[in-house]
């Protein structure tokens, strides 16, 4: 009886041998030049990573995250009850919208004859097409909400005061760009909802003094909403506005650090 209990020690059984082989393979992989060239010293994926203060610093310092975060922040700055993570959530939603949006671009043509039918076939013919379109739409509405709430949070904390005045201005520009991104995307399904919502919205633009009708003409590409409008708003939605908003986001995040991290407690 005792022998049967001790036998695994003398001769490893199959699961143990598989585990050993797995460990050896992992060690070989992590020792290889290929692996160490990808993960810089201090990476949590390197062999022998230990949780030490130096390695905690290296995780940030030796990775691309150093462009976004410093090595250390004020203890107060990581309190979720202060920021509610609203700025971060807005950024994550933007990334989610970019990923789902790229997926949608594969199945969509911005012409008045093809657009609606493409969305229709996306629902019925494309694997996960409806799901991804749903995610794109709900994430877009959610992002408008989180950006708005982020603005309110920052105001109520008085976080726009010196030295953060300019970053508030950038933030208001980002809020407007978010609304424009959402509004340009609203037209693209080319259904009754899209056409008439945009009709109501662009009619308001026409009331701009002096150059109102010119602004409206440039945005619509004609006197009425049509195929030209669809193409213009598509390019605005998938290329130009994302390009502009990424630049402003980069300045926004960079200024958060340059202005001394997020604002202090009340």
């Amino acid at each position: 009886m005792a022998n049967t209990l001790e036998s695994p020690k003398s001769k490893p059984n199959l699961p143990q041998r598989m585990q050993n082989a797995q460990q050896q393979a992992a060690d070989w992989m992590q020792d290889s030049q290929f692996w160490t060239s990808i993960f810089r010293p201090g990476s949590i994926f390197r062999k022998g990573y230990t949780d030490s203060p130096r390695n905690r610093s290296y995780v940030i310092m030796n990775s691309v995250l150093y462009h976004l975060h410093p090595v250390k922040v004020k203890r107060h700055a990581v309190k979720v009850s202060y920021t509610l993570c609203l700025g971060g959530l807005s950024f994550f939603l933007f990334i989610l919208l970019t990923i789902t949006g790229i997926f949608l671009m594969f199945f969509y043509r911005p012409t008045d004859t093809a657009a609606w039918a493409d969305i229709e076939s996306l629902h019925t013919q494309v694997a996960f097409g409806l799901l991804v379109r749903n995610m794109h739409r709900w994430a877009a509405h959610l992002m408008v909400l989180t950006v708005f709430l982020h603005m309110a949070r920052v105001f109520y904390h008085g976080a726009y005061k010196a030295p953060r005045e300019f970053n508030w201005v950038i933030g208001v520009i980002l809020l407007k760009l978010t609304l424009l991104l959402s509004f340009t995307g609203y037209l693209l399904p080319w259904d009754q909802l899209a056409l008439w919502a945009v009709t109501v919205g662009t009619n308001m633009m026409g009331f701009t003094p002096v150059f109102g009708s010119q602004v409206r003409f440039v945005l619509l590409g004609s006197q009425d909403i049509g195929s030209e409008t669809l193409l213009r708003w598509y390019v605005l939605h998938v290329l130009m506005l994302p390009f502009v908003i990424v630049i402003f986001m980069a300045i926004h995040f960079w200024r958060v650090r340059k202005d001394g991290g997020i604002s202090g407690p009340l």
Partner: protein
Amino acid sequence: MTEIPEHLLRRSAEARARATGAPAPGEGDAPAAAQPGDDDGVTIPRSLLEASQQPGGAPAVAGMAPYGTAQAGSAGAGGPAAAGGGVATTLPPLMAGPAGNTHRLLTVVKSGSIQDVKASPGDKVHVWPHLLAAEFTAALFITAFTLVFSLFINAPLLELANHNETPNPSKAPWYFLGLQELLTMFDPMIAGVTIPGVVLVLLGFAPYIDKNPSQRPEDRKFAISVQTIHLMFWAVLVIIGSFFRGQGFNFTYPWDTGLHGIFHL
């Protein structure tokens, strides 16, 4: 205290041990070296002082012996090493104080008076893992929420766009319904251009208008009141425009007519 890396602690312990002449902890066996209480870290250890005050070289070597044996013995050259120690201590200290101290404390200078310390260490935490873990969790949460919501509720897709058939009511996207609501009250020039324009400019220049340096809510009653009224103004208009405007954009109650055809996202 901030976290001091283990290798630095070990290095400083070795340096201290070298300075006091005692071997570093865990480095060889020195039977006579361990004299607890001898080195209090402030004054020169009594055993060292005694050694230095021995007249002549040979007794000094004898006095140093307990320390010398550990080093010289390990070096494997006891004779020359002991002779070297004798050379160093042939002359007694010229100006030893009454307590045997060879240094006098003139004054204590606080660091702030000669060093300009700009950055205070403060209370900081590592971004990894404290901030990144929270951010990663938030990203997972918002992705999961969007995914689950999208599994159950479909984005609207009405009939093909038709220029000849105006839906009743025709509504802008929900975030512009405040503006559309204003259009029912004011001239389009005022509702569509002046009010939103002024509001956006004021909002953008808020930091330059609000000169109050305080961040404390009790010092900012006016700013907080104005902003709350402003945000509530839009929220109420958007809610009315979304849920309380039916056929012909006339006022209605959603519980009377239902949301069908009135509200789209």
